């Protein structure tokens, strides 16, 4: 997790599953406390399961409720396919470069 301008960037690598979901959730929580713009950098995520999807949905929901900005930096295609499958994609701001979202 690091700051980029006024935004907090949460970088995740590898897998978001039962084992790691809580850590990502905690990082996002901290990020939202520090900034009103949070980017979840999923560019190096290889796998995401139901637990991981729940984390992204929760972040999207809480940012929508609080009126803050939340974006994900584009994940590999197969992860976006899952976002499509669960109906998350239309509600999600996707950026190609986390730094761009910060400006």
């Amino acid at each position, binding site marked *: 997790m690091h700051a980029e301008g006024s935004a907090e960037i949460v970088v995740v690598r590898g897998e978001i599953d039962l084992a790691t979901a809580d850590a990502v959730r905690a990082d996002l929580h901290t990020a939202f406390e520090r900034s009103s713009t949070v980017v979840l950098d999923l560019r190096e995520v290889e796998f995401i399961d139901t637990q991981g*999807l729940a984390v992204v949905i929760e972040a999207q*929901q809480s940012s929508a409720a609080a009126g803050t900005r939340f974006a994900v930096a584009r994940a590999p295609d197969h992860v976006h396919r899952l976002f499509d499958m669960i109906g998350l994609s239309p509600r999600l701001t996707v950026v190609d470069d986390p730094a761009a979202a910060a400006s």
Partner: protein
Amino acid sequence: MTNLHAAAARLSTDHRPGRRWAATGIALLAVVGLTVLDASWDDTLSATVVVAPFIAAMFAGVRQTVAVAVAASSSALLSGIWNDNFGNAGYEVRAAIVVTGGVFSVFAARTREQAARAEALGAQLTAALSNLAEGVVVQDRSQRLVYANETAAATLGFPSVAALLGAAPEELVSLADYYNEDGSPLTPEQYPSRRVFSGEEVGPHTVRVIDRATGEERWRVNKSRGVLDARGATGLVVTVIEDITEQRRAELAPRLLARAGAALSSSQNYQRTLQEVADLAVPSLADWCGVSMPDRSGVIAQVAVAHSDPEKVEFARRYSERYPTRTSDEGGSAQVLRDGHSQLIPEIPDALLEAAVQDPEQRELLRAIGMRSAISVPMTAASGTPIGVISFVNAESGRVFTEGDLELCEELGRRAGIAIENARLYTERSLIAHTLQRALLPPALPEIPGFSLSALYRPAGEENWVGGDFYDAFAVRDGWVAVVGDVAGRGAQAAALTAFARHVFRTAAQLHDDPLDAVAYLNRQLYDRPGTALCTVCCVHLRVRGADAEATVVCGGHPLPYAVRQAGAAEPVGRWGQMLGAWPHGEWARTTAALAAGDVLVLYTDGVTDASGAEDRFGDERLQAALCESSDPEDALRRLADGLADFETGEQADDTAALAIARGGRGGRGAR
């Protein structure tokens, strides 16, 4: 050697200086007296002055002797000059006698003093050695003891040093049994002194000694060093014997308890854990260690047994099978289990065996073990109720248990009891989890007239705390609904949510005619729950259409089901819809497909596609390939399970559920 010289020099300070000076005084008086006499009587006595240095040599120190000798020689010379300047023949001879005698006296005094010093050193060193807390023995090449200090005599069990030195080597060995630290008997070849004589460098050697007469256990460290003779061969071996029994006992308890504690807390399988604890107790604490717990039939079953000899372990197993102990038995383990009091029998007399065991054959078997001393302690749960018994027996080592051993054993029993109780609670919790998990699924799939059904359910991990996959199948007004779902989260909360989702969906589907309404209703119910309640579902509304059927598929955030067509190809059916519980409103799509007789529809959760192999995930393509050519629901799920089994590496990470449905009776189409 320099140190010895210094020590000797320090020791030589005479403890009777008065005698020295008196002797010196008498010698000087003799010199003066004899000289006067010689001067007055002329040439008769001059040689006799040599007596003076002799007196000094016998009683005074070297320096005093030198002084007396010089005085005597000077007197003899002066006397010669006085008397006609050596004119008298023979004066030279007499003077020479006095000088020679003086020189001789000085050497004699020196030798006497050195001898006295050496003697004093020897006496002091011997005194020092005999007062040493460590035992010291010196053996010559024939292995006989040539020296021993008092501590050595006491350590080796002799009333005095003389008795020890008088004992034959065989007698020494026969008083006790000797073992190495690992429990193996100490062989004569391993004796440190013998190894030093054969030219080996031998480090400190720890020996466990059991006194044959008293059964007392002692621990010793022997350090042997060779003493080289003038030719460079090992002439003597000095062995320092340190008794470390107290230290050893003080260490054993915390070490054993720590290791037992680690074993007891590491595993949930208490039977294996108890075996580890029994293994730890052997041989450091006892020759045998056994753990018994009562079973439902009233037999106090042996759950663990340890001995350093595997054959004896086998013997104990066979013995306990042949002569089971019952909770109703008199005395022994049954008694300990009933009243919770530990038992210490330092010496087991044969009469006790006679009285306790009626069967002569059984008695003989027990006699053959040669039990000498025993301890039985209860394993006590936190409530104080004994739940088992740990027995410690000493046999072949001949060791006798002490009160100190009993305390240690009781502590082991307490710790084991608590650990077992925890393990039992864990097992019980697993059972509750398992029961809950079963409750999330229908007790059995219903018989659906005109359809055949098969289900697969693999929770992640053997003792997994309930996961979130579920499936269900039930009748609705105009047909049947089958559903597979996956709730996000783990643990009790997820379990509760899973049960909620399944029942809400079932009720909604039975009340609404349209599965779409049921999905939307469940979404709203989940969304309105406090906190995040997310769930994916895939449901199928089945209706009979003549020989075939019609399947209406609705998916909410769930992977699409596959239809395996009669021709063998597997194709996905339906359209994606949003996950339930995430957003208040949503749009889900109905897809109606024909399910011809012989087609198989397979619903599954992402545990199937997410299963990880050596390099990647199982994925859609492998699933599709595995399902191709499925002949009926059962076959489809068998293919799916086989495909997963071949692919998967490591432990299964997620729950896996699948449901397969076909129009027609089971096996109606026959095998392809």
